């Protein structure tokens, strides 16, 4: 049966999307959750849409035509005015970083046998990095500040096998300006029987 024509026992798109947006009344929410608990297909829908929304591209902001035209005119005229010098900027200065990429946690991620070091990607012009390692209760088990993009886990930090841990890295890109990675999780040496 086509996904968009499921029988009435399945919540429709309006109800499932309202559930994801947290817009359902308590009783309706409980009913939808009871259905989702037993319906793999609807759960798959809901999970996929949640993932799509969290990774959706940002909507472009329309620039009024008049403003765009003024910007083009300024770009055409400005070189003649030697604007950078008038603003006191040296022609030898590096171009400003207008968009800052966040550091990306490289390893450990997911299920791993052991953890000796935490590794992340470098951020251009970052002066230092601040790392935090947390347990599943949100307690910080280790902090570090470093100029490197690798941090060896000290022996004093004992990780419990099978327990989830989280970590993130913030990069300092300017005076009191930080850009942070997403929270990554890993589990060391899952218990086997």
């Amino acid at each position, binding site marked *: 049966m*086509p*996904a*968009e024509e499921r029988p009435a026992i399945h919540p429709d*798109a*309006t109800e*499932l*999307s*309202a559930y*994801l*947006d*947290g*817009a359902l009344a308590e009783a309706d929410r*409980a*009913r939808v*959750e*009871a259905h*989702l*608990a*037993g319906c*793999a297909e609807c*759960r*798959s*829908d*809901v*999970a*996929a*849409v*949640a*993932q*799509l*929304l*969290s*990774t*959706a*591209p940002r*909507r*472009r902001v329309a620039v009024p035509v008049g403003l765009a035209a003024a910007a083009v005119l300024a770009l055409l005229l400005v070189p003649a005015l030697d604007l950078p010098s008038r603003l006191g900027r040296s022609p030898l200065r590096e171009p400003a970083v207008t968009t800052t990429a966040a550091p990306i946690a490289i390893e450990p991620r997911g299920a791993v046998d052991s953890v000796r070091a935490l590794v992340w990607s470098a951020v251009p012009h970052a002066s230092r990095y601040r790392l935090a390692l947390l347990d*599943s*209760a*949100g307690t910080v088990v280790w902090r570090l500040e470093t100029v490197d993009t690798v941090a060896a886990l000290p022996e004093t930090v004992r990780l419990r096998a099978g327990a*989830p841990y*989280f970590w993130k890295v913030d990069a300092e890109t300017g005076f009191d300006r930080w850009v942070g990675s997403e*929270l990554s*999780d890993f589990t060391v040496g899952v*218990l086997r*029987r």
Partner: protein
Amino acid sequence: MADTLPTELHRLLQVDPATRDQAWDAFVSAHTRLLLHTARSISRDHDGAMDAYAHVLEALREDDFRRLRVYQPMAGSKFTTWLVMVARRLCVDQVRRRYGQPRGEGPAAEQLRQVRTRLADLLAADLDPDRLSHPAEANPESELRARQLEHAVTSAVAELSPRDRLLLSLRFDDDRSAREIAAIMRFPTQFHVYRRLTAVLDVLKAALRRRGIEGSAP
């Protein structure tokens, strides 16, 4: 997140048929990135994604925008969430018509049995591992115990609230990460997911003990 139609949708559904093309262009322009993003999630190759995208647009426009007219704004809900849900279902249907039902959707009963076995194994972690059923050492007593445990787990899970049952389904049926579960069920953080999961497992263990499933003694 108002309970009114988005402007571009309102114009599309209300406008004079003579100027409907312009209104449709405006609607597509407003949502094309989201629809393309959805199409790409179903089909990784470029041609497949463009096919799916074109199919969604055609389906949304079909029968004087029949599918879009169904949308009912609700306070607190977003049109874009609904649109992604509808678009994704259209893409999935297109793929299924073309390639058939995806593999892995076996009989529901067998899947349910496997899930209960996994959950039962987790809950039995406090039991003496030496006494747990092992395929090489299977005997009537240990098999009976395993069935009793599975039955007890199923009964105990049925007593949980819908929200807690959904949490277990997402974690054990679907193997979703804490981050995914937090996004679906609107937990504030992943930590809240783990805390609730731990609490639910404690409730289940207590329920098993009440049912006489305690330690390794029969």
